[in-house]
């Protein structure tokens, strides 16, 4: 049995569909609204049933996890969930996959002295973080890089929850704005925003804001690249302006206060999509050292819907856990999944318009 929480959401529906389609086993689709969860379960291409569950209720959560080989969480917001569901899954003897979580959840779970046994947990099994830290590894395979660039973004509507998550994505646990990675360390205040630049794969000129995520930092260490630049890409300056305005006025990272202001962010994202149509691009470029062995220097993935794409990544992570290709322990997806296998599966997925490794 595979338990899936948040199966009625933007990400969860796709995750549920893919898990069923991969034939990984019968699904238990959990949601706060039973009728919606039932509708999702009924539409799946495999055996599934729906269960009403509130993940803030420990008893309900424990009951949901009971009997599952793996529990998949697509519910948010991450800052609230943290490792709550992961602990319930472990207690029930299940492995765990989470669309989000980041270092905060991973650290929370790792630091508890609960007996994890040989259990597996994979956090950040989405597009960003997740795919954004995994796909660039295709470029580093066996050779040192002079430079590695990450450009991810497009025009996507933020849901109120994802807007709060975006607003909470701040501080050293997430990344450093305007910084680059050079020669083994973070160099702050060194990159400026790029305005109106044309980038391969992006259909319109874009604004790219440097943000050296912790994921990019790990990527730098793991690949040994001399320099890493990581950009969040926007079609206009509306979203960066909206995020900066909220951050400037709400001093602390209090989710309740931020949720109150998330409107400005979702509004900006809706205007962007109205102007440019929905699209999402992940571009990674490598510059190997002269004389390095030949290999690909660009990975480009384009899609229409980043939420659905996240669902696919979650399903692929679930499959990797179930097929034994993830070692026991607590991981981030970017570090635990196999880049080649993931890319091959994404390449054939109808939700991916294009995935090229050149």
């Amino acid at each position: 049995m595979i338990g899936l929480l948040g199966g009625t959401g933007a990400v969860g529906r796709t995750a549920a569909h893919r898990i069923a389609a991969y034939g990984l086993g019968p699904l238990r689709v959990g949601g706060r609204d039973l009728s919606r969860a039932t509708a999702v379960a009924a539409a799946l291409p495999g055996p599934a049933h729906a269960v009403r569950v509130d993940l803030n209720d420990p008893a309900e959560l424990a009951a949901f996890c009971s009997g599952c080989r793996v529990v998949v969480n697509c519910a948010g917001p991450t800052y609230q969930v943290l490792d709550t569901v992961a602990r319930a899954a472990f207690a029930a003897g299940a492995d765990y996959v989470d669309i989000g979580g980041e270092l905060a959840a991973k650290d929370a779970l790792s630091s508890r002295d609960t007996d994890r046994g040989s259990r597996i947990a994979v956090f950040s099994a989405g597009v960003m973080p997740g795919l954004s830290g995994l796909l660039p590894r295709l470029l580093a395979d066996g050779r040192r890089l002079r430079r590695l660039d990450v450009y991810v973004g497009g025009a996507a509507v933020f849901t109120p929850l994802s807007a709060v998550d975006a607003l909470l994505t701040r501080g050293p646990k997430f990344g450093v704005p305007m910084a680059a990675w050079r020669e083994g360390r973070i160099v702050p205040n060194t990159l400026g925003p790029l305005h109106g630049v044309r980038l391969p794969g992006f259909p319109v000129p874009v604004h790219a804001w440097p943000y050296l995520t912790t994921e990019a930092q790990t990527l730098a260490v793991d690949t040994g690249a001399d320099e890493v630049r990581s950009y969040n890409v926007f079609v206009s300056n509306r979203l960066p302006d909206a995020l900066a305005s909220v951050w400037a006025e709400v001093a602390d990272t209090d989710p309740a206060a931020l949720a109150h202001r998330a409107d400005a962010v979702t509004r900006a994202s809706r205007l962007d999509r109205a102007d440019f149509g929905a699209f999402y691009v992940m571009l990674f470029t490598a510059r190997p050292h002269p004389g390095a062995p030949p290999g690909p220097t660009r990975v480009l993935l384009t899609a229409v819907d980043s939420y659905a794409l996240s669902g696919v990544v979650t399903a692929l992570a679930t499959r990797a856990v179930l097929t034994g290709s993830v070692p026991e322990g607590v991981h981030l997806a970017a570090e635990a999944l196999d880049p080649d296998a993931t890319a091959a599966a994404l390449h054939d997925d109808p939700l991916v318009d294009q995935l090229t490794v050149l």
Partner: protein
Amino acid sequence: MKELAGIWSELLDLPPDEIPHDVGFLRLGGDSVLAVRMSALVRKRLGVALALSDVRVETTLGELAELVRRRASGEPTARALPIKVTPRPDPHAEFPLLPLQQGYFVGQQDGWELSYDSAHYYLDYALTGVDGDEAADALADAVERLAVHQPTLRARVTSDGRQHVLPVAAPGAVPQVRVHDLREASAEEIAAALRDVRHEMSTRGPDPTRGPGLDLRLTLLPGGEGRLHLGLSLLIFDGWSSSVLSRDLLTHVADWNAALPPLEIHFGDYVTSLAELPATETWQADRDWWWSRLDALPGPPALPLAADPQEVRPITMGNREHRWSADRWAALRQQCTSRGVTPSTAMLTAFGVVLARWAGHRRMLLNSLQLNRLPLHPDVQRVVGAFAATMLLPLDLDPAATFAELATAVQATSGEHAAHNLVTGVEVGRELARRRGSRRPVGPVVFQSVLGVDAAMGGRPPEDAGPLGRVVATDYFHQLRTPQVAIEVRCFELGPEMGAVFSLVDELFEADQVTAAFAEFTALVDTLADGSGWDRVPGLAEAADPGQEDGGLRLGLLPEPAVRHQEGPPADELEQAVADVFEELLEVPVLDRGADFFGLGGDSLLAVRAVVRLAKEVGTPVPVREFLADPTVAGVALAVRSRLGDQR
């Protein structure tokens, strides 16, 4: 400023007196969030509201102070030019080339079609009553004194496209005068010598990357006659400057003790101050004004061509020249006054009418040369330098209108465009070419008028030149070479007379068509002088834009070199090296082998720098023209590869 420094110091956690005024917020540790807080604090403490778009992370404290000052004073965005020109602390420091200079510089590197080894103007004129024994020394001495008064006589251009002024004492700094003494020569010898010197000075202009931008020669002839020869690099002197230079020179020759009122500022000071312009709202408003019109601008007149400009290698430009007597010119001025247009407008309209008939359509883009300097300092009009700018000017001639109505409309259009002259034609043309994806010159048909310059300079130039005798302004010979021009008309005054000349690349046109067009032009101007032409409808083609029916070559409708490279990441280390050089100069990511240097924001001057940089990086220079012919990563790499192949 102190308050602002205080705010920055709080936000950035730096001591207030350690915050430099010229370093961006970002470099000091700011980010976009702190920038928002900063503008909130400015509003709170200084009561000045700044828009979010005003405060960029790149903003310096100095820029912010200026912004706050303007916001606080509610200063309207009127044309009060927000910059001042002050003398630079080091008068010999390098400074950038202005846009038109950049165009000439790149042309001089054989950068594009219709270029020459030098962009220059050659002029000689007759002298009478020359004191043959004194003239040469007096002239050389005058040049030395003038080189102190006008430092631009000592200007040089560097190989990577910057400029500076040599100290007076530097060897070779001051232009030398060469004297041809033909006082004892026969008429045949004189004719041959004159032909030779004209040919030499017309086909080889002074090269300011190697020496002075002025080539000055004196021919002494029998009977106290003589000729003064001037070769002026357009990289150093514009048309206005050649008038100023001529006047100053004659003043110094005429009087050993002449002392002109000292100049507080020089060309380098002006150019250095202009660097602040793009940060001003006035400049940005002009840019927005032009940018919003770009997509609607017409092409150049679709003149029938005898050859593709890409295929010709002109040495000099051909001329068709006409002069109007003092009476005719006075009559024309009077007619213009009564019709409420300037003589320059009348000539421009006449040129437009002739072009429209020749090209068979009536909407067209012309390029006009603007000699006026921005009035940033009282001395600016007396200074010598390459101040000139171009302005793109669209004409849309109404086929039902009389000449007078056309001229009124042209004057309005021209005035409206000139009111947005902070962004020059070269810059507008670059953006236009970028949007059109074109490598061809966007304004190869040029209008230039210096009518009225003499009056603006306080009367006709002096005729008495001491030991040099008297100047006979109407006995002259001149020759112009400007890159990227297919044909241009120049209108000028010669003492009491008026002249007009078509300068053109002969190889591009059928000679009889040019002759016919020029005859039509002079005849039309004649009817304006006698008054009969103003109320006539010139009879233009109905078609606004050129049709494609004619298979022949037409200006503005030439095929673009269709080099298309497979897009993708740089294919090898050489392409990556080219991409790295592009990236370094353009400061944007260069990630595709199909990426175009100009599409990414480059201009031709940066292209010359890229060539220099690339030569260092890959060990072989690529000719500028080859770079510009296919300025993509893959194209430039291909050019390098073929060079490397050649060497083997």
